[in-house]
Structure formats: C-alpha cells, structure tokens
C-alpha cells in the first residue's frame, strides 16, 4: 500500500492556514512531484496550496481552484495528490460529504490521493504531536490510516520549524485562494513563507 508523507513545507503551510483562521473551517490541496515511483516508495507531498476559509461546501470557487492549480502543477511538474480540511469545531475530526467528494475527484486523476483531516485539538505552540489524520481510499470508502505511521518525511524538523513559525505569527502573512480572489496580487504560492521555512531548515 502506497504511503503518503509530507515534507516540512507542506505540513507547516497547512497548519499555518488552520492557525490563521481559528474560528473557521479551512481547506486546501497538497501537491506531489509528478514522477514514476518505485514499488513501495511513498508519495511525497512537497507543497500545500491553502484554498478557502469559512463556508467551504460550495462548488464554483473550488472548481476554479482545482482547474487553476492543476494547470500550475503541470507547469511545475507537480500533480495534485491530496486534499486537507480543518473543521470549524475543535472536536470535529471526521471528513464531511464535501471533503469526500473533493478527495474522490482528486483520486480520479491520482489514484493514491489522500484525504487529510487536521486535528484541531492537537495544534499547540510546542507541536507535541502531528496534528493530522490521514484517510485513504479503500473500496469506495475513506478509511483512517493507522496513526502510528509517520506522516512527515522528517517529523522532528517539521516540529521544530512549525513551533518557530507559530511563535513568529507567520500565519498572519499566509495567503490562501480566498485572499487571492479578494485581491489578485496576493500570491497563493506563498514564496515568502517558503523562504522562511527554508531559512529555518
């Protein structure tokens, strides 16, 4: 079974998105490099594109985002490999119908797509535990993967950098697709945050 792993950049941007809008649901996409993988090699999600915050379950902007980011992926030899969502309520960790639909759509194009739910209760300044649950598609259902499987390529690095970013309030400058639609000059690839993360590595 192919395992999905996240790089520090992907994990951190995803959690920064959740941290920026603590009172809203947020969602976004995960992208991986589009290359032939050997058997048993994990799918590595190298980046994350934060999409929306607030009311998530509406189709048109999601379709635009998926199409636009798909085009961007093709230019950069990436492929959309996953979808993440953080629910509005802290105790709500299960994916809803909308999350499953979007993830299924992504899976049509990339069979090993993952659906990642952020566990809001695990987000803390010290980042003690990885704050996500990974769901995989089996027999038309999304099943939660064993939590003991490492979700990050390098958890101790991700933990250290995530903590530093939260201290710095880097989430204030994170741009999601909603911010981009509000002002087209806002760049959803977040180059400044990517630089900060690289700098901290």
């Amino acid at each position, binding site marked *: 079974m192919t395992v999905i792993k996240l790089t520090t950049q992907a994990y951190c941007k995803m959690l920064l998105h959740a941290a920026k809008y603590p009172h809203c649901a947020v969602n976004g996409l995960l992208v991986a490099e589009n290359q032939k993988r050997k058997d048993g090699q994990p799918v590595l999600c190298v980046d994350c594109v934060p999409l929306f915050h607030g009311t998530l379950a509406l189709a*048109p902007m999601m379709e635009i985002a998926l*199409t636009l980011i*798909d085009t961007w992926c093709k*230019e950069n030899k990436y492929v959309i490999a996953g979808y993440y969502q953080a629910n509005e309520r802290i105790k709500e960790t299960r994916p*809803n119908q909308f999350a499953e639909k979007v993830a299924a759509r992504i899976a049509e194009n990339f069979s090993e797509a993952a659906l990642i739910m952020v566990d809001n209760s695990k987000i803390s300044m010290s980042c003690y535990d990885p704050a996500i649950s990974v769901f995989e598609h089996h027999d038309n259902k999304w099943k939660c993967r064993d939590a003991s499987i490492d979700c990050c390529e390098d958890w101790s690095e991700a933990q250290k950098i995530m903590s530093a970013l939260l201290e710095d309030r880097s989430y204030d400058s994170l741009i999601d697709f909603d911010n981009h639609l509000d002002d087209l000059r806002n760049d959803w690839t977040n180059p400044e945050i990517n630089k900060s993360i690289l700098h901290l590595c």
Partner: protein
Amino acid sequence: MASVSDMYDVTWEEMRDKLRKWREENYRNSEQIVEVGEELIQEHASKLGDDIWIIYEQVMIAALDCSRDDLATTCLHELKKQFQGSHRVKRLAGMRLEALERYDEAFKMYNDILQDDSTNTAARKRKIAILKAQGKSTEAIRELNEYLEQFVGDQEAWHELAELYINEHDYAKAAFSLEELMMTNPHNHLYCEQYAEVKYTQGGIENLELSRKYFAQALKLNNRNMRALFGLYMSASHIGASPKASAKVKKDNVKYAAWAASQINRAYQLAGHGTKETKCSLKAVEEMLESMQIMPS
C-alpha cells in the same frame, strides 16, 4: 515586551480609532484587538472617557477568542461594576462561560435574561450559538428558524441560517435564506454572488442559468468582484457545453464565457503589472482558460 505604540509608532488616539474601525466593520482580528486594546486600557484608560466601556466589551470578546481569560475577567469586572444588573453585561458573562465550555451554566444565564426580558435577541442568539458549538446543527437550525419567524428583519440571523444549511449540504434551503437577504438588500453584491454559488452547487441546467444571471448581477453591482467574474465564466461555460441546452442558448453562453475569459485575463494582467510572482499566476490562468475553451457544436 515592546509596546504597540512604540512598535508601530502610533498615538493612543490612533489606537482608539483603529479599535473603532474594527468594531464598526465587525472584524474578528482578535489577536490584534487584544494587543492594541490591552495597552489602551492599561496605559490610557483615563483619556478614553465614556468610550472605555465599549472598548472593554470589544476587548473582552477578543480576549475570549484568544483564550485570555485573565484579560476577559478584568474587562468583565469593570463592566459589572459600572453597569450593575445590565443584561448586556450578563450576556458577556455568559459568553465567558461558553468560552470555558461551561455550556449548561451559560445556557442558564441566557434563560435568566429571557425570563426577565423575553424579547432579548442577543440572549436567544447566544443559545443558538451554544447549540452550534456543541455540534447540534439540526437543533440550531430549528431554533434559528423559530427565531426568524419572530424577528424576520434580522439579517445577521438569515445569513447564519444560510451558512448552517450550506454546511449541512441543504442547498435548497440555503438558497431560500439568501433570497430573503437579497430581497431586503438588493444592492449587496456579496449576497447575490453567494446565492449564485449555491445555485451552481445545486446543479442542473436551470440552476446553472439562474447562477449565471446572479453572477452577472453581482458583477453589475460591483465590477471588481472576481468571484462573480469567475462564476460567470464557469456557469456560462457549463451551459455552453451542456447537451440539454438549445443551440441558441449554447451560442449565447459561449459568448458570455468568452467575454468573461477576456475580463479575467485583463484583471490578471492589471494585477501582475510589474511583479514577477504573479506572472506565473497569469500564465496559469491563460492556459486554463485556453484549455477550457468551449467550441460551439
């Protein structure tokens, strides 16, 4: 710890004015409100005059958002002293209990207010907020509908209802709630645009046509609404490609889609003027629009 006034080189009057702006425009930037408000209260309380009470209220709510129970309690204490027996202050005390997840006690507090004053809308809405926080969406929706039967003009409540329905994937009822909002606010482009999004999500050719019309209306009300422009493009493209549409309808929609595409390109060009980063966005948009180009069949 550097003070806000030092860090950003602002006077206390500017801080007070900023708080007012955030208050009037209903911003939820709680961390900033706490930072600015706390300093204003601690260093400049005497200069604020009667403004201080509404600032205490604003800072208290922001403090609850940031888990700053210490600050919230301080603000609440001052307000209780000044406005003894006030329902407005009692509601704030209830909100503090909500923040501490002591929902039963908060519920009781709001019921006490309602016993005294059955028309107190704030207390009723907090009770519904508790249901929402507890994940009891169906009950929250039911209570909110009952509330709206009595208080038909409460726009904030209609919008909340629309969002609750969207989260439950009940798009038909969400559309109905947004229709109420559009009737009373015909010039609000955001309601038009959200209504169009709901119709689009419902799907089917009739809903798509309605969706396109409302995206167009939103654009007419505010020609810089990018969501409306993208929505117009998507809905027109889908209708143009639909086997259920007549030849004339297809032809018209292909034209609308083409117009929208050129406007989108233009908007991106204007935005990308000069910056290197947005150029990659522009290229992606151009390619996306090209690849989606609908040829009339």
